[in-house]
């Protein structure tokens, strides 16, 4: 699936030449145009806003890059000859005899396994500072997909992009496959022999000179092993380091379900952090505005069919609708103060654009206005003017407001946020603090600094690195790479043989979470016991086993280690029954950490460095590949980042005005000179970015990630220092060249047709009917068709959608969607069936941002169907727009005729048919497509069919909610609802009956089955004219 096209087929042109096809690259005179332009109300890119000619070609043609016209008559004749011959041969190729296939039964079949039916096992994916509970799908012992565990507090049935993509890491062909010593194949037994010797040697000196480095972890079993190890060797030391980490020992737990007014101080709580999935769910619940319908309306909605045209009926009922709305349309209001555009910022009703380094001053000023300490500081822009209004809004919602400090803000800002919450009476209501749950909470940078100092001083003889990759991601000023060479014995447990492994004599392949026993705790302390779905593919080892060697224990079976730990701690009458229950449920009962009202923050550290002139530089984990641990994951590399729809790269984000002042354009390569360190990266002009500031994303520029991640993007860790891990100042830029991006923001463009509908809550309360050009049903040439049985439809609530793109990755995992590589993406050939479009509205400097997921609309009068010459796309009796791969001959007429541009064509053999390990990840219920075939969203017809068959066997109708499409199941905000619109009581029918409901490009009268609910903005009237 992670097709390696990007490796196998080099870009056919040099980057310099290929800038021609990358419209974001050459924007001649963009700045002048921007100033004078009067672009569309909703725009996708600055180029569109400025009306640059380059992007017109993406409007004229979905795939502007194609074979040039045949001009030479002789050549044209040759072409026809070749064409005729290949057509004849193509016909013959259908005559091949079907090859014989083996069928291999079990020797001893597991008892609860029904061949052909998947089994689901509860486990959890540990992530930085927490875990997400999952139900992992296994097809005859082969894990293929992960879904959220509905009873897990961090999941609620949903997951994020990383969890969805983590299944691909299990089958990653570049995983370390054997224990190596100095690059030669060795074995676990040899490692135990050598390391056991070292251990015995250190034991005579109480562990002096033995060091362990790991990421912070919450596993109770590992913590107990670590404690036992440190007790046995008191002079040994356990260091902890992770590039993206939070304040140690500080675990705020927010309750968005009780929050009416939320102020985020640079907090990206909807996308970052171990609880983002849960917070998205709770936040969206407070934003869901439903109009209670009068019985007449419901009846009428039923009569006309929920997605049929409403105007006649609705017009008559507007009075009713108004009455029912008045006074009850409430939703929470979100203020976000930030410098780097984030997913949370895009959801804000009011986004206050300030520099990241100004956030502490903003917090202090707001605290001052609330009488919660803090002194008013000076703020740039209009931030200061907005504070009084925000303060009044907060004061009007005592006990139901919430002030959140961002994970990457210093402890002082968190202390201010706590003081404000306390003053507003929110503590204990919308925010409380969980007791520390990590093993030995440690400041990572301090811990790493000590380790480096000791290594340089020759105090470290043996270093064991469990998972961390400090050679790649340690702060640049610490000099970790030089220091590690001074250690005599170095061993590394890691997923792949990466940068750090190259500096260690021993490399041990690390077990993936789906192939190992362990345990972990979620953001609120809830514990899950991890159970493996498969034997380690390559004899991989878990950290528990390494610790067991260090503890000189003979039993190194991770199952026994974990079970042993819990045996001693559970007071259950029947431990085995307890154990089975805990594994089955995916949560250990009564393990949530106790909540308190005191934050337990460390004393405020050194105040941030004084500004040194130059530009502010902000470091952020990448929205797609996080800190670099997902670099070799093709699904995530090709995921277009929510903010700029860019794939396969990171960039230097800069605001339009600052770019102008620096004389820079998008795709200029600049040399960033920061504290004497230099790194080159391409510029991306980012609407909404703070002035005099740049943002760089971590995780790129890997050299030993594997075939997908090597050499992609630039390494921002090379600039990051230990004293300013998240924001620094004094960066200088110098233009050195040009670059080309693969961004999807111009692709699948629907022209200037207002695909996104937005209303203010105030307007909605007056008249909830969304504006749309609705045509009467009679204006069609097609004969009417009554969908008597099921009538499948989808509703997507734009007010809930956060744009996180978990749906895109879930769809990719469910439907065997290939990865195509940067070169192909830049040609408009990405394959994602479900894309999330991003629109801006307003000024280029500080626009509003809107997201819109676009799957196939499954139009009842589908324009694609009538143009297919071979009937490869036709309609089903329940209203699905079917795509039949085996009939498709690849004319692409359908894609050309699709107004929504949701069809994807296999220009090459994108599915990787040759990498054996990737066979494992494929969903056996979905065809793996070949070259020359059109494909698109099927509404997860494999799930529909499975539910249909089960219901038929039981002689009943499918119940509402029985079928969850992959995108619906994964959605953290529960924004996507699928179901039978013939059933007036189904959730989807009720959503479609809402006055906010509208169809995309309704004026075309294609009668889409997928409809949207308009976005609402809860504007504070005091700062409306800000």
């Amino acid at each position, binding site marked *: 699936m992670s097709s390696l096209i990007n490796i196998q087929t080099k870009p056919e042109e040099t980057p310099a030449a290929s800038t021609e096809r990358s419209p974001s690259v050459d924007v001649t005179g963009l700045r002048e145009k921007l100033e004078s332009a009067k672009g569309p109300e909703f725009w996708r890119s600055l180029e569109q806003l400025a009306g640059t000619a380059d992007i017109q070609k993406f409007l004229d043609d979905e795939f502007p890059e194609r074979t040039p016209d045949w001009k030479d008559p002789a050549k044209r004749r040759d072409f026809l000859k070749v064409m005729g011959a290949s057509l004849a041969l193509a016909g013959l190729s259908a005559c091949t005899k079907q090859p014989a296939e083996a069928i291999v*039964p*079990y020797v001893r*079949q597991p008892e609860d396994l*029904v061949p052909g039916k998947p089994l689901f096992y509860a486990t959890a994916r540990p992530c930085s500072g927490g875990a997400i509970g999952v139900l992992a799908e296994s097809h005859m012992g082969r894990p293929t997909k992960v879904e959220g565990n509905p009873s897990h507090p961090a999941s609620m049935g949903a997951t994020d992009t990383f969890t969805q993509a983590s299944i691909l890491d299990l089958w990653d062909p570049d995983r370390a496959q054997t224990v190596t010593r100095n690059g030669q194949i060795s074995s676990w037994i040899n490692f135990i022999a050598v390391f056991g010797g070292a251990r015995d040697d250190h034991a005579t000196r109480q562990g002096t000179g033995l060091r362990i480095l790991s990421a912070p972890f919450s596993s109770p079993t590992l913590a107990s092993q670590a404690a036992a190890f440190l007790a046995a060797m008191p002079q040994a030391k356990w260091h902890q380091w992770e590039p993206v980490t939070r304040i140690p020992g500080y675990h705020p737990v927010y309750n968005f379900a009780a929050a009416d007014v939320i102020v985020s101080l640079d907090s990206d709580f909807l996308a970052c952090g171990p609880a983002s999935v849960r917070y998205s769910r709770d936040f969206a619940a407070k934003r869901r505005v439903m109009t209670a319908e009068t019985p007449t309306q419901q009846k009428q909605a039923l009569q006309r069919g929920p997605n049929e045209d409403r105007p006649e009926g609705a017009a008559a009922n507007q009075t009713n609708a108004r009455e029912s709305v008045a006074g009850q349309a409430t939703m929470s209001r979100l203020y976000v103060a930030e410098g780097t555009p984030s997913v949370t910022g895009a959801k804000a009703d009011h986004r206050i654009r300030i520099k990241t380094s100004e956030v502490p001053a903003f917090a202090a000023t707001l605290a001052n206005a609330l009488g919660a300490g803090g002194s008013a500081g000076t703020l740039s822009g209009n931030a200061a003017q907005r504070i009084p209004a925000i303060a009044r809004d907060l004061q009007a919602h005592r006990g139901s407001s919430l002030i959140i400090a961002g994970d990457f803000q210093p402890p002082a800002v968190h202390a201010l946020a706590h003081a404000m919450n306390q003053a507003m009476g929110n503590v204990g209501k919308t925010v409380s603090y969980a007791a520390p749950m990590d093993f030995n909470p440690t400041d990572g940078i301090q811990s790493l600094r000590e380790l480096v100092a000791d290594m340089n001083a020759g105090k470290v003889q043996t270093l064991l690195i469990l998972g961390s990759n400090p050679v790649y991601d340690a702060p640049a000023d610490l000099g970790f790479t030089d220091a590690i060479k001074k250690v005599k014995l170095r061993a590394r447990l890691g997923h792949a043989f990466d940068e750090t492994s190259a500096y260690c004599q021993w490399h041990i392949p690390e077990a993936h979470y789906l192939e190992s026993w362990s345990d972990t705790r979620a953001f609120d302390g809830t514990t899950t016991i991890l159970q493996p779905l498969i034997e380690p593919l390559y004899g991989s080892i878990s950290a528990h086993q390494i610790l067991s060697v260090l503890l000189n224990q003979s039993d190194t079976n991770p199952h026994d280690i974990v079970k042993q730990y819990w045996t001693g701690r559970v007071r259950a009458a029947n431990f085995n029954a307890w154990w089975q229950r805990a594994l089955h449920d995916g949560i250990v009962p009564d393990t949530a950490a106790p909540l308190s009202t005191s934050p337990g923050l460390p004393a405020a550290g050194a105040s941030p460095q004084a500004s040194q002139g130059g530009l502010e530089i902000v470091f952020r984990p990448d929205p797609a590949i996080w800190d670099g641990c997902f670099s070799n994951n093709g699904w995530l590399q090709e995921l277009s980042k929510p903010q700029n729809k860019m794939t396969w790269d990171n960039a230097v984000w800069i605001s339009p005005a600052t770019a102008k002042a620096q004389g820079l354009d998008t795709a200029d390569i600049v040399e960033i000179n920061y504290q004497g360190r230099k790194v080159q990266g391409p510029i991306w002009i980012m609407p909404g970015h703070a002035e005099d500031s740049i943002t760089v994303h971590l995780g790129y520029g890997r050299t030993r990630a594997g075939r997908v991640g090597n050499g992609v993007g630039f390494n921002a860790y090379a600039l990051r220092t230990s004293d300013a891990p998240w924001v620094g100042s004094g960066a200088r830029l110098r233009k050195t060249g040009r670059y080309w991006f693969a961004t999807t923001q111009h692709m699948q463009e629907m022209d200037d047709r207002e695909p996104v509908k937005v209303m203010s809550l105030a307007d909605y309360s007056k008249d909830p009917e969304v504006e749309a050009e609705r045509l009467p049903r009679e204006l069609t040439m097609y004969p009417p068709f009554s969908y008597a049985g099921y009538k499948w439809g989808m509703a997507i609530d734009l007010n809930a959608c956060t744009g996180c793109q978990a749906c895109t990755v879930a769809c990719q995992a469910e439907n065997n969607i290939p990865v195509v590589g940067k070169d192909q993406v830049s040609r408009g050939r990405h394959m994602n069936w479900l894309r999330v479009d991003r629109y801006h509205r307003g000024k280029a400097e500080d626009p509003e941002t809107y997201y819109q997921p676009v799957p196939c609309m499954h139009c009842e009068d589908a324009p694609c169907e009538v143009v297919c010459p071979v009937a490869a796309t036709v309609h*089903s009796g329940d209203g699905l727009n079917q795509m039949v791969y*085996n009939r498709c001959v690849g004319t692409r007429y359908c894609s050309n005729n699709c107004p929504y541009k949701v069809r994807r064509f296999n220009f090459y053999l994108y599915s990787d048919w040759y990498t054996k390990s990737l066979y494992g990840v494929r969903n056996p*219920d979905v065809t793996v497509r070949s070259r020359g075939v059109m494909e698109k969203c099927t509404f997860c017809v494999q799930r529909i069919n499975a539910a249909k068959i089960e219901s038929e066997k039981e*002689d009943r109708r499918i119940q509402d909610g029985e079928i969850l499409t992959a995108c619906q199941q994964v959605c953290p905000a529960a924004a996507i609802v699928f179901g039978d619109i013939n059933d007036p009581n189904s959730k989807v029918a009720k959503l479609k009956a809402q006055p906010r409901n509208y169809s995309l490009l309704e004026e075309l009268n294609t009668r889409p089955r997928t409809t949207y609910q308009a976005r609402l903005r809860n504007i504070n009237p005091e700062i409306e004219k800000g």
Partner: protein
Amino acid sequence: MAQIFPRSANSVAKVSIVAGVILAGTIVGAAYTIDRGHFITNVSIAPDQPVPFSHKHHVTDDGIDCRYCHTSVESSSFAGLPPTETCMSCHSQIWNNAAMLEPVRASYRTGESLSWTRVHDLPDFVYFNHSIHVNKGVGCATCHGRVDLMPLTYKVNTLYMNWCLECHRQPEKYVRPRDQVFNMSYEPPPNQLELGRELVAKYKIQKLTDCVTCHR
């Protein structure tokens, strides 16, 4: 200038028109015959198997029910192939020295699966579900033929789409009462159409001809 073509050329030309048509027809006909013939469709051809398993012996002589081995046929898309353990439940006691069964014993001993050659192999873009067919009254023998009379297993139908559609369009011609599904020697009654219509109504059998019923 002398004539290039002799007089006989006229006859040759006339004959060649007819002969050409016949030749073209023969070629097309031959191609079609080969394409639909046993060589391509594998109908009636019993592939080599690691053990010459006889359904005739096990079903007809021993009276073992289909579901003893094909356990998931009523509940899953896949009918299920018996694990070695199932074979050994009898063959550890009977014929436990037969040379013919050595691969089975070896599999049980070593834990290595037997590797059979698929007889009924649908293309990978076709998704067939056994359980729904069995539950709606399609007998085993309707598609698989009299497996109970086959010493070596072969398929009796092409499993081509036009063959599937024959029943999907007119299920009343083929369905039988649910309790007769596993009866290999069931013969449709003379009033099959009448009974079929009754069963179609009773079992709520739909005429599923949507593409996504099988292709996805």
